[in-house]
């Protein structure tokens, strides 16, 4: 063994602990490989181990510990371990080296070959020789680790020295205060309490734990160990609850702590009592129920602070459950439970049955908590208490609404408790459970709640709401109401939804129907749907002949139906019914709005279910898309039929397209491939397609060329755009030559006048360019098609031609900007140039916005490539050029165009991108505030509001210019429509928070004075904003 190595360790221990560790590892490896003998290693250390200088002794021992802990656990023989541990045990008396010798012992205690006697002697040595009081926190921690290792690895050995271990450990930990040490102390204590013979030492062990209760530790801000107060509380709670032998000490001590004025201590105490009740078992707890109950009940009855009453309820429930556990379903006479229930009921009954009393509800809450504890308790309480409540509201019709309300609240508490005990209905047909004790009161309960809901004057909203919620709880109780009763409840709820005028009642009724539907979809199908559908106006029956009662608008009924689609089967049936209805309305040929609402209902459910990814939409994709596409095509071919007017109406096609888009986009690539082929047959190759119903297939194939110039079938393009938008990028476009399709569509788009169709074509071209054009094709497209468009936009003689070319350019430009293509900026340049154009400048201002605006079709959810920095890049590119263009332009019209163009861009750019550029264009922004264009004004004010807090310095500088303009914008005049006025007021309201006080303060009085005008605005929304805004200025300091 080289001295040198050891010297190296000793030296590096001070300078670089990592290096020392490596040295120790090397030594260990050498021993492991038998290159060095253990004895040799110790011998070469020998001199240092007994050195006069304690510092050197510490280092030497540290070396031993480090090497030992690096050895594999089966390297040392039992004898070697015994020898080493004897040596280290001797060193325990050397107080300076305690931490190191403990470290060595810890390593040894983990060795596999350690003998029982060695373990025993290590434990005894630690208990006998170590005096913790003289050592710092880290050293004590090392000692606890040794014990922890022994307790966890050799518990049987320690049990053989039971007395020594228990008393030794309690002596060892006396006075421990460090949180990290306490964590380990508590876990060792728990093991000892649970595994050792502690009958004789129970009091000292309990004291050793309970002296820490309640934990008031609060971790320092820079706590290196990350121990929280809750960690300690939980560990300590485990110790106190660990043995039922503690019961005689723990309950009295804990009850004493309940008198604390601190809510935190109370909460901790209650939770600890709950843990004790849980762990000690029924027999032990039974003898303590009275003290516990009497000391906690006031917290419920007198409505204690924060969550304390709820925790006490939990405690009572646990208490009941625990003392009931050994007892049969019925309460046994004279058992602890019997006495407990008698006491609690005796105390609470008079209060529960005095509906005037303020304590009626708290008393019911207490009893309900107990009844939630066990079946026996529940049934006994239900049998005794509930009839008392019934008699109050049944016999005396004189009971006021307030009293009846209290009664319902009380009963609801018991129903809730019953549900938590006996269980709620779930969707799947459940196994038989035991009969609910509430069943004996089923009829009065059901009748009472029904009567309260149905025959109370409708202005008693909160009362009826209570009744409604109670009924639903009854309905959801497992094995309680039968199907006919459920049906009745569903009908009452239907009536509320269909005829009640109060929002919260309707909302609650609808939600409840949904809850019922979730556990029993048949209710929706058999009771709710027929009622709701029959309330929809029927075009074949004249309105007078229909139902007599005033009914709600069909949109409410439809939206309720959409809300009630609790599963796919229900939705499938709804779509069938609604499509039939749609066919009827279409045949009638009158009401487009109604037809659109019907179709929108179908859309709405798909929107929701695809948004939360709840359903696999493939089924609906396969069934609905062909149906809808076929329907639209048939209608557009048979123009003369009455239903065509409806089905091919642009507002209907818009919804149809939205449904097709969502369904296509929700299915997988494989499912899309076949669909893509079929849709191309209809639109591109004009062949018979399976998407069209068979009887019309070939007729439609020969009669329609929807994408040809001049074919002009309105609406059909929109469906194609929606379908193509939904295709994944990976789904290859089903036609090899996307470039020529896109190029050929350009003349079609330019010659289309119908707005929805032109928009659809613009979008379609943008989609093709963005999703499927390769880099080379993109260049070709820009070089030919885009160049052509550009020259038409600048040079065509026809204004309409210039405008439509510019429009299409903007859409192509958008798709390229999104894609991050450099060549997009050739188009941007042109648009910015055109801002100076005398004729088409206004069009260019809009194009500025189109280039970057978000779109409902051309966006990420339709698999469009949208580069992260696209907006930033575009904005950075434009802003400088617009500022320059503005400054160099002479006539006011051109200046105006630049301002409007800028504001059209700003609408689509998030504040944090705008802020860095703000200094350069703020002057422009201020000028646009004085324009009369309300769009520009709105965009400008919103930009200022959004950037206020992040650019407060800059805005503060210009506050004297900005404020008058904004104040002017609050005035009620034609150039300030309500939206502008509200935006201006909201902007003003943000100022005091966003800017430093001394900037706003000088204007405060003036602002308050001027705002008085807006207080008299003709619009309520503006007045509301003015009131709120003015209040912030009144509330300003000073």
């Amino acid at each position, binding site marked *: 063994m080289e001295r040198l190595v050891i010297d190296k360790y000793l030296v590096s221990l001070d300078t670089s602990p990592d290096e020392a560790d490596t040295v120790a590892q090397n030594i260990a490896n050498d021993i492991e490989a038998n290159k060095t003998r253990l004895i040799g290693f110790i011998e070469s250390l020998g001199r240092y181990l007994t050195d006069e200088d304690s510092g050197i002794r510490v280092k030497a021992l540290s070396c031993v510990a480090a090497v030992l802990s690096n050895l594999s656990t089966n390297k040392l023989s039992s004898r070697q371990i015994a020898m080493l541990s004897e040596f280290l045990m001797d060193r325990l008396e050397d107080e300076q080296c305690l931490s190191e010798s403990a470290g060595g012992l810890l390593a040894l205690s983990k060795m596999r070959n350690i003998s029982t006697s060695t373990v025993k002697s290590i434990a005894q040595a630690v208990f006998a020789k170590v005096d913790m009081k003289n050592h710092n926190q880290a050293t004590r921690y090392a000692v606890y680790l040794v014990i922890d290792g022994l307790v966890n690895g050799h518990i049987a050995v320690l049990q053989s020295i039971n007395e020594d271990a228990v008393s030794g450990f309690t002596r060892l930990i006396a006075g421990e205060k460090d949180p990290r040490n306490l964590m380990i102390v508590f876990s060792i204590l728990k093991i000892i309490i649970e595994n050792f013979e502690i009958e004789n030492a129970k009091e000292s062990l309990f004291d050793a734990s309970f002296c820490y209760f309640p934990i008031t530790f609060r971790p320092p801000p820079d706590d290196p160990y990350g121990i929280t107060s809750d960690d300690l509380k939980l560990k300590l709670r485990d110790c106190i609850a660990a043995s039922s032998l503690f019961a005689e000490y723990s309950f009295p001590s804990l009850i004493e702590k309940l008198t604390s004025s601190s809510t935190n201590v109370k909460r901790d105490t209650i939770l600890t009592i709950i843990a004790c009740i849980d762990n000690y078992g029924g027999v032990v707890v039974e003898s303590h129920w009275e003290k516990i109950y009497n000391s906690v009940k006031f917290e419920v009855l007198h409505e204690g602070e924060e969550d304390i009453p709820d925790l006490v309820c939990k405690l009572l429930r646990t208490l009941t459950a625990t003392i009931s556990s050994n007892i049969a379903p019925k309460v046994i006479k004279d058992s602890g439970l019997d006495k407990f229930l008698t006491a609690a009921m005796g105390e609470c009954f008079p209060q529960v049955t005095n509906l005037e009393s303020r304590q009626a509800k708290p008393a019911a809450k207490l009893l309900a908590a107990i009844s939630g504890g066990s079946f026996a308790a529940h049934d006994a309480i239900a049998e005794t208490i509930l009839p008392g409540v019934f008699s109050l509201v049944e016999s005396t019709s004189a009971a006021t609404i307030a009293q009846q309300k209290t009664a319902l609240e009380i009963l609801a508490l018991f129903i809730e408790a019953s549900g938590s005990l006996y269980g709620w209905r779930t969707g799947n047909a459940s196994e038989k459970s035991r009969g609910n004790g509430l069943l004996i009161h089923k009829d009065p309960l059901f009748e009472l709640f029904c009567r309260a809901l149905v025959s109370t004057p409708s202005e008693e909203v909160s009362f009826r709401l209570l009744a409604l919620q109670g009924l639903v709880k009854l309905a959801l109780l497992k094995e309680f109401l039968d199907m006919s009763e459920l049906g009745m409840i569903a009908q009452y709820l239907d009536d509320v939804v269909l005829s009640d005028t109060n929002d919260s009642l309707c909302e609650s009724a609808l939600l409840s129907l949904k809850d019922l539907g979730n556990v029993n979809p048949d209710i929706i199908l058999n009771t709710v749907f027929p009622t709701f559908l029959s309330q929809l106006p029927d075009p074949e029956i004249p309105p007078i002949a229909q139902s007599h009662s005033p009914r709600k608008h069909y949109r409410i009924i439809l939206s309720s139906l959409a809300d009630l689609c609790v599963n796919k089967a229900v939705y499938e049936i709804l779509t069938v019914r609604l499509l039939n209805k749609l066919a009827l309305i279409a045949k009638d040929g009158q009401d*487009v709005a109604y037809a659109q609402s019907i179709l929108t209902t179908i859309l709405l459910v798909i929107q929701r279910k695809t948004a939360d990814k709840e359903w696999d939409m493939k089924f609906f994709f396969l069934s609905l898309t062909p149906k809808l596409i076929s329907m639209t095509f048939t209608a557009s071919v048979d123009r003369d039929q009455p239903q065509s007017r409806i089905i091919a109406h*642009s507002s209907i096609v818009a919804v149809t397209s939205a449904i097709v888009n969502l369904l296509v986009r929700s299915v997988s690539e494989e499912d899309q491939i076949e669909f893509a082929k079929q849709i191309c047959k209809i639109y591109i190759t004009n062949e018979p397609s399976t998407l069209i119903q068979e009887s019309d297939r070939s007729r439609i194939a020969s009669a329609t060329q929807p994408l040809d110039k001049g074919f002009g079938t309105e609406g059909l393009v929109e469906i194609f755009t929606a379908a193509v938008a939904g295709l994944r990028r990976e789904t290859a476009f089903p036609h090899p030559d996307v470039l020529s399709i896109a190029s050929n569509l350009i003349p079609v788009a330019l010659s289309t006048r119908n707005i929805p169709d032109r928009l659809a074509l613009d979008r379609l071209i943008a989609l093709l360019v963005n999703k499927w054009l390769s880099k080379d094709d993109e260049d070709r497209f820009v070089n030919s098609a885009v160049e052509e468009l550009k020259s038409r936009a600048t040079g065509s003689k026809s*204004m309409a031609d210039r405008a439509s070319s510019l429009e299409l350019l903007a859409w192509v430009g958008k798709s390229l900007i999104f894609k991050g293509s450099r060549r997009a900026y050739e188009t941007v340049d042109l648009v910015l140039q055109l801002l100076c154009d005398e004729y088409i400048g206004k069009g260019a201002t809009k194009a500025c916005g189109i280039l970057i605006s978000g779109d409902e079709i051309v966006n990420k959810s339709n698999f469009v490539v949208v580069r992260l920095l696209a907006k930033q890049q575009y904005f950075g590119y434009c802003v400088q050029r617009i500022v320059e263009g503005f400054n160099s332009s002479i006539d006011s019209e051109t200046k105006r165009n630049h301002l409007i163009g800028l504001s059209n861009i700003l609408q689509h750019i998030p504040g944090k991108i705008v802020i860095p550029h703000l200094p350069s264009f703020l002057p422009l922004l201020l000028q646009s505030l004085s324009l009369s264009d309300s769009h520009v004004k709105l965009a400008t004010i919103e930009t200022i509001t959004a950037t206020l807090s992040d650019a407060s310095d800059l805005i503060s500088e210009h506050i004297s210019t900005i404020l008058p303009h904004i104040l002017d914008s609050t005035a009620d005049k034609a150039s300030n429509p309500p939206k502008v006025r509200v935006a201006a007021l909201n902007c003003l309201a943000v100022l005091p928070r966003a800017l430093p006080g001394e900037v706003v303060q000088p204007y405060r009085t003036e602002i308050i004075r001027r705002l008085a005008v807006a207080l008299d605005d003709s619009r309520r929304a503006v007045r509301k904003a003015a009131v709120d805004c003015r209040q912030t200025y009144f509330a300003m300091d000073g």
Partner: protein
Amino acid sequence: MSEPINANPKILSLEDLPTRSTASRDIFSDASSPKAIFPYSALDDAFPPRPLYEGYSSLLLLGENGLSGDDIDMKMAPELSSGESDVDDDDADFDEHEPIDEQEIYDLISTISDPEHPLTLGQLAVVNKPDIYIISSKDATGRRQKISRVIVEITPTITHCSLATLIGLGIRVRLERCLPPRFRIEIKVKSGTHQSESQVNKQLNDKERVAAACENQQLLGVLSGMLATCK
């Protein structure tokens, strides 16, 4: 804080407070659709005004008729809307006048919090909608005259409530801040609900005393606490 004067007041549920009915709101901008009572659903956004040109105006350069003539001066084309006020409004009718009514006054003051309970004056039924009166006389032409009176009668939770003046003052300050100056505000204790009714009424409507009270910093602090919960 000392023991509250009325420790256990009667409390109304939020559902039972009067609110402005949403019934009058027309939810579909589609002109052909009937006005609908449509209180609680997401369908608002779900039925877009698809066929209307306004929806497309920011996406397209040309309107339906914009392509008809070949030599249109773009400045003349109405669809390009250099227009004065073409920000879409929820209900596009610009002349619609929504006068200040009792519900609006109620909404202004019912959310003031009580000085001794963490509840609002509405919940405590100190302020009740039927006890709010707006009186504005009409002139010969039938038009409402500018000057109007607002009378608010408050109902203290108990008849000896010493905080009635403070509550009344809070309501007065709130209304003075929130109503245009053409309103004359009168705050009264509802007849028969307070022991020293006339005294309180005198205090609440005496300009000098109200002004003096508002100079008192401590009182002002309490008032701003009461008004902080206003919505």
